[in-house]
């Protein structure tokens, strides 16, 4: 008997999305009525024929997964990494039978439990005790199993005192702890986990990671999607990189992480204006990012200690005065946000928006050491995300004279201006 528990062959998942046809600049009421009448007619026809119906006039097939092949052996913990829209979640949904594949096949040996969200099906009106049973049953545990592990779950979640309180009265921390505790006590042969560890405080996150590690060590198979590369390194022996619905790499964690990080830098060869993997309503769209010095001339790379002016050039569909703009530059290190410079926190939340303009972030005394830093560009206008590009650009840094001591040998990653003193202890 082979030891392969999951085997995917030529696996594919297709979605059909519709586009509204452009009808020129001016729309008359007559055109709108005609178009509506036509679309009602088309939909009715499709409905009668039992075809799936899609909004919009022109249809496009999108393959969220295509020709995916892999094998996973019993007891392996496999991390799945990839950028947003690479098909990670779709793959998990197919494996956990939430959605059917459109092509190919997967054979799975053993009971699968999937944890795509913490607290699925929790009902706010029910008490903690009742929700443990409800959530357990939803995740596929039997009543007996839950009963057996009940005390363990409650102890793990640290909610003993509030067992008979409706969960709507719980703090969000308690809620998440309880929800994760139930999930952590699942005992399937194969566990499929989406990015669910990004919840709770850091102590609890650590506890969750530990629990996940136990699961993996008990010889059960774990599939784990995360943006947190550190968690992947800790938990998994193997990793799979998905890129545009295909397996770009599948092997050891180091190899896959390396591949993933190079693919990110490949991505940045495309200008930010032409990137398609962006989110938001595109009311405002980043067109270029520039790093400038105090004189306004552009920098190829930054020296630690230099004053840096980061400019996000954009094009907006209309001009707005005093809009609630939330613009942010985040530096990401292996999936975690290392630094987040956002207008919200620094008290510069009300800004004007021009049809063509740039947001400028002034970063005095640049305090990172030599390296290349992956950055996210984000902007929301009046509380709606306008544009959001992951891995939008890289900041290349060379060590400079940060401390003003004429010495540019620097250590660590983040530099902090400081001073040491010496005092006698007279107590």
């Amino acid at each position, binding site marked *: *008997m082979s030891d392969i528990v999951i085997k995917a062959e030529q696996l594919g998942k297709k*979605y059909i999305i519709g586009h509204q046809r452009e009808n020129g600049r001016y729309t008359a009421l007559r055109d709108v009525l005609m178009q509506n009448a036509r679309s009602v007619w088309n939909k009715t026809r499709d409905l009668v024929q*039992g075809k*799936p*119906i899609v909004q919009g006039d022109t249809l496009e097939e999108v393959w969220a997964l295509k020709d995916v092949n892999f094998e996973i052996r019993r007891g392996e913990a496999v991390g799945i990494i990839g950028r947003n829209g690479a098909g990670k979640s779709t793959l998990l*949904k*197919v*494996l*956990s*039978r*939430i*959605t*059917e*594949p*459109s*092509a*190919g*096949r*997967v*054979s*799975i*040996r*053993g*009971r*699968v439990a*999937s944890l*795509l*969200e913490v607290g*699925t*099906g929790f*009902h706010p*009106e*029910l008490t903690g005790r*009742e929700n443990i*049973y*409800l959530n357990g*049953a*939803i*995740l*596929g545990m*039997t*009543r007996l199993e839950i009963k057996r592990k009940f005390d363990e779950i409650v102890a793990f979640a640290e909610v003993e005192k509030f067992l008979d309180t409706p969960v709507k009265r719980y703090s969000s921390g308690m809620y998440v702890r309880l929800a994760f505790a139930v999930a952590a006590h699942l005992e399937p*042969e194969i566990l499929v986990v989406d990015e669910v560890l990004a919840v709770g405080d850091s102590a609890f996150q650590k506890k969750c990671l530990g629990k996940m590690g136990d699961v993996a060590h008990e010889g059960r198979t774990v599939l784990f999607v995360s943006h947190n590369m550190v968690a992947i390194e800790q938990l998994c022996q193997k990793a799979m990189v998905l890129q545009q619905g295909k397996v770009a790499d599948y092997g050891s964690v180091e190899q896959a992480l390396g591949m993933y990080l190079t693919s990110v830098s490949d991505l940045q060869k495309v200008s930010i204006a032409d990137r398609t993997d962006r989110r938001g309503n595109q009311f405002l769209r980043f067109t270029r990012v520039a790093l400038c010095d105090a004189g306004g001339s552009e920098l190829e790379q930054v020296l630690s200690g230099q004053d840096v002016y980061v400019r996000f050039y954009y094009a907006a569909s209309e001009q707005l005065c005093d809009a609630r703009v939330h613009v942010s530059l985040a530096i990401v290190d292996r999936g975690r946000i290392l630094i987040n410079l956002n207008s919200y926190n620094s008290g510069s939340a009300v800004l004007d928006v021009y049809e063509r303009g740039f947001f400028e972030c002034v970063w005095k005394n640049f305090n990172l050491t030599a390296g290349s830093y992956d950055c996210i560009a984000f902007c929301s206008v009046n509380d709606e995300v306008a544009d959001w590009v992951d891995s939008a650009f890289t900041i290349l840094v060379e060590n400079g004279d940060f401390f003003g001591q004429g010495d540019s040998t620097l250590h660590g990653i983040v530099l902090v201006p400081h001073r040491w003193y010496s005092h006698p202890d007279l107590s």
Partner: protein
Amino acid sequence: MHNTPTKQTEHLLILEPGRADKNYWRDLWRYRELFLILAWRDVSVRYKQTIIGLAWAVIRPFLTMIVFTIIFGRVAGLPSDGNAPYALMVFAAMLPWTLFSSALSEASNSLIGNANLISKVYFPRLIIPTATVVTAFIDFLISFVILVGMMIWYQYAPSWSIVLLPGFMLLALLASLGPGLWITALNVKYRDFRYIIPFVVQFGLYVSPVGFSSNVIPEQWRLVYSLNPMVGVIDGFRWAILGADSPPYWPGFALSLLVVAFFLWLGISQFRKMEKSFADMI
């Protein structure tokens, strides 16, 4: 690969386009605990944060019964079935009607109400609408107590036909489940159907023989009238509760049964057909 059924092959699951049907009914059985727990959730959440709680299950049909008795019995002067008091005759129909209409409304909104489950966990989706029907059934059992009270008040003894009542209850549930399944599946994609149900329920209350006896329908129209599946169900209920001397119009009853069976078949087959795409659309 060996063909011997070892413990390993027992758990082998193959996912392929169009393959989902194979284990469906077995899965449905395997997930019976989830069915029970979802039904229990719906029942226990239903009257949370209400002051009179379960009394709502009683008040609504009771008040409607009073209004119908006055309008149809007193004002319009319609005859009752046999020698049963008019109020009792109305209430004997109010029970299955309320069961049908609340089961239908609950079932048709059930998938949308559980969208988060559908997009995050696998289980046979048929569980959701069928579990909600249980809530309607519990309400039905509670208002049944009122019927017993009324029979004591009117000193009306049931006859042997009362033993058939569970069969008619089942029939009322099946009558609501068929269209309920169909509409809840359509509702996933077209929210239009959400607006149809309140209309059907309101309309149906007057079209079905709830406020009056179906004996007032002219003889030549009885068969056509029985195309409404609730005609058969309500006549059956009245017969079971009020006594064997007013049996239903049997050809009509058979037709109602056929219509119920047809809708049930349609509901299940349409639901199963659309089920695969629920998670992608909801």
